[in-house]
């Protein structure tokens, strides 16, 4: 037995050893009943929150929820001297006698103090230590847990009564208004039409409206004008780009990963798949199924494989195969944990990954649940797959494998050739030297000849192989692009040799595997095998998955058994996208640690109707965008500011800061250079002249672009439920000195000069329309003219560029009213 193993076993045995405690004397039944009836409830009510197993933070190392704890005492020493209240720390503490005043928030009522004094006087009866220690570990009560709000079925609610009855335009508004009225608030006025179209266009497409669009909308007094605008923007291909990006934050999308890690397939197929899925308004349940298991669905073909990018593009960690398999197993288990975290948080708003080492501390998710899901990911392998039927591709796949093998051989042969050449050179040099010393050197010539022959042979072999490679490369579909997809293969982490020192081998087997529960999350301490299945709390009766890895069953369970939760979570994300704050402000935690919804009935009602309307995301946008709530002005009343500074009750619209993508896109759009090509390979944003939409900028998981990093772009290593919004001096430097604003200021000025040559006032007006969707005020016009001054030629040009840069840097250009 190795030392390490022996230590581990030794540790195991000792883990169960507890310090020995003096058992309390045996007490009578009456005494114990007294303790249970009077004392335990008192301790529980007054002390457990800080001094028990379930205390969030155990204070003073003291536990009063067990006899062991009561006898042992805490940091400040023993708690009790049975029979002698005056000598017992517990009593002096609750009497606030010598500094250790407990409970800290205020003295107990006299009656309770008297009760505890009486108890100590009576000899502090309590149950025997062993009995208490033998109590079974707390089991999750799933039946009770299913009563938690987010696990409840969704239902439509009756429309609440409101006083301001002519305000609502949508069902949403009744819920929002009734909450406002309850809180003593009233709605803000509707936003001005120029502000409204700007807000709407950015919200749906991530781009500003053109001046012409704004003017036409402001002038259009048809009652349907707004609704038509919503429809037009929902139908624009840029809609999918804007909302697809929201999704890509959740699924930690990346174009590149560290060079030493495997990255199968071309990630951008997945990004483009997501964009198209939003544009096509694929029902959300199907959207979920296809991303987890399109390869297992009869309805979809190989052209849909890019959907699997969600799993295939998961972060991977370096596995040094020279290390013992015990270590590599942990790394592989870490990868499964990452998948579980991303999938459960994205679709269910649950932090299932917390249950890897122990039952979830706060939510009803057991370790068994975790391993039931981990088995699904342990039965799934990330690979590149062509977007054509496997049958057609099979010869190419074989050819690729063959070529890889042959290229290895060629490499070896070339190395041998190089080695021989070097040797021959050295030999020749030696021979030359030898010849100079002794002219009789026939033997060396013979050796050289033999070497030549071997060399010719080697070169011949290389030529043969090379021509074979060329032949193979001509196989149809040899260069077919590959999607980042998955296959139904199970990974096994095995010892490469007899001992751990021989390193590790990763083996892939066809078909699924169930995982054992890893004690304390450690794959080297396997327990009982857990069949793959869905989460207990979300299934009426969890049944093992039987179709392959179970990905499709998992996906379907999420939108059937767990449909209420999945629907609530996505409805809340879309809401968050439109208001800058979700009804639940923890968009990826709908568990006990998450926030409660501000408007539970509204969330319920919307989720129920979302499902009834075919899980249509575009339906959801309409519900929200046509509401009076969303169309309010962003100007809060004084009353709103004092009653509800965080605007939980939505008595006005939130002013929102544009994310980096729409901010940059708006610059490019205003300056007239934006390239609206949809999809395709990513490209470096910092490359001068890159005028593509920002979402096509290369994302590198290992080396994030400084520009993106500085502007709160989410970390592509992890699921990101919402963006942080930092304001830093580095962003200030980016405004002043970065190439983006300088370049776009130039482009904008060129455009203005093109459209209104030499006409300063018209140029100022046009700049305001292009950037801010409005006319400048007299004051702003005067500031502009004052800045540009009476200049001409080069001077005028640079003044104008400086001015344009200032406009691009304004708060108004970044914040959406």
């Amino acid at each position: 037995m190795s030392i390490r193993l022996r230590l581990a076993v030794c540790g195991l045995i000792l883990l169960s050893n507890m310090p020995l405690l003096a058992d309390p004397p045996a007490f009578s039944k009456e005494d114990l009943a007294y303790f249970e009836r009077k004392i335990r409830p008192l301790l529980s009510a007054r002390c457990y929150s800080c001094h028990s197993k379930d205390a969030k933070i155990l204070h003073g190392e003291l536990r009063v929820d067990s006899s062991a704890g009561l006898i042992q005492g805490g940091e400040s020493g023993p708690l009790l001297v049975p029979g002698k209240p005056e000598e017992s720390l517990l009593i002096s503490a609750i009497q606030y006698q010598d500094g250790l005043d407990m409970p800290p928030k205020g003295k107990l009522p006299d009656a309770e103090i008297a009760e505890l004094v009486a108890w100590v006087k009576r000899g502090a009866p309590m149950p025997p230590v062993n009995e208490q220690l033998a109590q079974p570990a707390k089991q999750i009560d799933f039946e009770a847990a299913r009563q938690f709000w987010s696990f409840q079925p969704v239902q439509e609610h009756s429309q609440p009564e409101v006083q301001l009855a002519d305000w609502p335009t949508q069902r949403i508004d009744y819920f929002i208004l009734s909450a406002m009225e309850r809180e003593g608030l009233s709605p803000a006025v509707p936003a001005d039409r120029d502000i409204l179209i700007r807000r709407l266009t950015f919200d749906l497409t991530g781009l500003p409206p053109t001046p012409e669009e704004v003017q036409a909308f402001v002038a259009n007094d048809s009652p349907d004008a707004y609704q038509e605008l919503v429809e037009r923007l929902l139908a624009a291909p840029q809609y999918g780009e804007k909302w697809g990006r929201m999704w890509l934050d959740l699924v930690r999308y990346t174009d590149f990963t560290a060079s030493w890690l495997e990255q199968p397939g071309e990630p951008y197929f997945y990004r483009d798949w997501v964009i198209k899925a939003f544009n096509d308004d694929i029902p959300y349940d199907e959207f979920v199924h296809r991303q987890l298991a399109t390869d297992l669905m009869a309805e979809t073909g190989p052209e849909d494989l890019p959907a699997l990018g969600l799993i295939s593009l998961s972060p991977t960690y370096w596995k040094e195969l020279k290390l013992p398999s015990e270590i590599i197993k942990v790394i592989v288990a870490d990868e499964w944990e990452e998948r579980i975290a991303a999938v459960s948080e994205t679709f269910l708003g649950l932090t299932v990954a917390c249950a890897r080492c122990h039952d979830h501390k706060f939510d009803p998710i057991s370790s068994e649940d975790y391993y039931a899901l981990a088995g699904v990911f342990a039965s799934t392998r990330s690979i590149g797959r062509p977007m054509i039927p496997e049958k057609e591709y099979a010869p190419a796949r074989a050819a690729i494998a063959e070529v890889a093998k042959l290229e290895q051989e060629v490499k070896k042969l070339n190395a041998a050739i190089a080695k021989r050449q070097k040797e021959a050179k050295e030999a020749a040099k030696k021979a030359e030297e030898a010849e100079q010393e002794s002219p009789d050197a026939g033997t060396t010539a013979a050796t050289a000849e033999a070497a030549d022959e071997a060399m010719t042979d080697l070169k011949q072999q290389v030529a043969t192989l090379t021509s074979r490679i060329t032949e193979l490369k001509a196989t149809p579909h040899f260069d077919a692009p590959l999607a980042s997809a998955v296959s139904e293969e199970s990974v096994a982490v095995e010892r490469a040799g007899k001992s751990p020192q021989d390193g590790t081998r990763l083996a892939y087997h066809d078909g699924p595997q169930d995982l054992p529960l890893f004690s304390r999350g450690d794959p080297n301490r396997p327990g009982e095998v857990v069949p793959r299945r869905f989460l207990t709390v979300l299934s009426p009766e969890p049944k093992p998955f039987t179709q392959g890895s179970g990905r499709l069953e998992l996906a379907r369970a999420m939108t059937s058994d767990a449909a209420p939760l999945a629907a609530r979570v996505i409805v809340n994300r879309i809401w968050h996208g439109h208001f800058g704050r979700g009804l639940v402000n923890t968009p990826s935690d709908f568990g006990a640690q998450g926030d409660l919804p501000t408007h539970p009935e509204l969330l319920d009602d919307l989720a129920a109707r979302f499902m009834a309307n075919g899980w249509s995301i575009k339906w959801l946008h309409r519900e929200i965008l046509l509401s009076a709530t969303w169309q309010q002005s962003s100007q809060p009343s004084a009353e709103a500011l004092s009653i509800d500074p965080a605007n939980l009750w939505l008595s006005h619209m939130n002013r929102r800061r544009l994310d980096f993508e729409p901010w940059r896109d708006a610059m490019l759009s205003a300056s007239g250079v934006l390239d609206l090509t949809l999809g395709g390979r990513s490209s470096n944003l910092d490359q001068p002249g890159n005028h593509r939409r920002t979402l096509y900028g290369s994302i590198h998981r290992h080396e994030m672009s400084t520009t993106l990093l500085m502007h709160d772009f989410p970390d592509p290593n992890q699921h990101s439920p919402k963006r942080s919004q930092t304001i830093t001096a580095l962003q200030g430097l980016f405004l002043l000195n970065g190439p983006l604003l300088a370049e776009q200021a130039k482009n904008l000025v060129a455009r203005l000069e093109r459209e209104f040559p030499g006409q300063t006032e018209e140029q100022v007006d046009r700049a305001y329309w292009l950037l801010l969707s409005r006319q400048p005020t007299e004051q702003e016009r005067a500031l502009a003219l004052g800045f540009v001054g009476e200049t001409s030629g080069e001077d005028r040009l640079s003044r104008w560029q400086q001015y344009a840069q200032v406009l691009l840097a304004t708060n108004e250009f970044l914040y959406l009213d």
Partner: protein
Amino acid sequence: MFTDHSHNRRHLLKLGGGIGMLGLAQLLSAEETGPAPSALTYGPHFAPKAKRVIHLFMNGGPFQGDLFDPKPALEKYAGERPEGADLVTERPTGGLLPSPFKFQPRGESGVPVSELLPQLGQCIDDICVLRSMHADNPNHGPALLQMNNGTIVPTRPSMGAWFLYGLGTENPDLPGYVVLCPGRPVRFSILWNSAFLPSSFQGTYINHSKIDPATMIPHLTNSTWDAQTQRRQLDLLQQLNSVHLETRTETSSLDARSQAIETAYRMQFRGSEAFDVNRETKATREAYGTGHFANGCLLARRLVERGVRFVQVYYGNGQPWDTHSKHNETVPNLCKDIDRPIAALLTDLKQRGLLEDTLVVWGGEFGRTPTSENGNGRDHNHHGFTMWLAGGGVKGGMTYGETDEFGFKATVNKVHVHDLHATILHLLGLDHEQLTFRHAGRDYRLTDVYGQVVHEIIA
């Protein structure tokens, strides 16, 4: 007390407006004459002993028993888990693993310091070793959050943001709170965010793996416009922004953005100087030595010297001190990287008369286990670990608190992270119970409802 919607807007407006109206000449002269208007936001509650803080962050978590907390009992029980000993952590660990590194009493005080830190040992008489630190969570993310933000909840302000809220900045030409890391620590910007405190109090993260300021700080200089032109641009920008502001309420982030760009403007001139370690003498450069961490320490000194309130220097990218395997092979290299620079930093601060009111804090997010993990590693240990403080009104040449005989759990004079925060705030002249901010209907503190100032270590 400030509240969400009304906090220091008036003040910021005053500051922003004031600068906006200053002409270039005044600005440049202000640049030369030093302290510009202080953005004092809350005021010290009493006379501070420390005016600025440098936090040397050993991200990943160093093992106390190698460096400052010798535990001979580990030898006696090597490879064992003695009966009754409480040594359980989240991951399975094996028997006790003695530290192979020797300790020597150092300085006049004779406080023992590891042979891995020979130069730092020379400074021990200025150092107060806290041997009894403990925290609440054994995982990096939550522990980093607790050490930086006082809680594992990721939506609370960082301590640096609290410092700025409490004391403002002394140099409007530079960010008041700078985070240096040659890479990215785990959890990244959340560790220096301002959460519900005004956005201008958040840390400015700078990757200092390249030491040329123009490379280290992206977009530091402008090759097209001169300072006067930029000043004109900024004056116009602030005018346009204030027109925009006039018609709007709840303006914290708008104000903060206007202020950030003013700081950026001045950073162009002061930053290239402040962030340039090449302006140091050869002797100073040599004293600090080479490497990212050495440069970080030297940068920290340059920055605090120029009035930056809080500088954090993360040891490295990711969590380099997280030695789950090959612990004994890794630690000497890590120590080699920090020994000379920290010793140089303390000496340098002292020579410049800065140490007396600059608090230097050293430590990780937690410590490591005295037991082995997989034979040659050590697991996370938040139950007991060492941090140390130097300067800034702290007694030197002392140890405070104890861990158990194996160095696993803090036992005597325990110092929780909340207590550390309370103590740092106290040294900065701030009462941790009074430094509150009303948000979402509650008064928040860095120390939540906890924290006791450790008066015994204050000089």
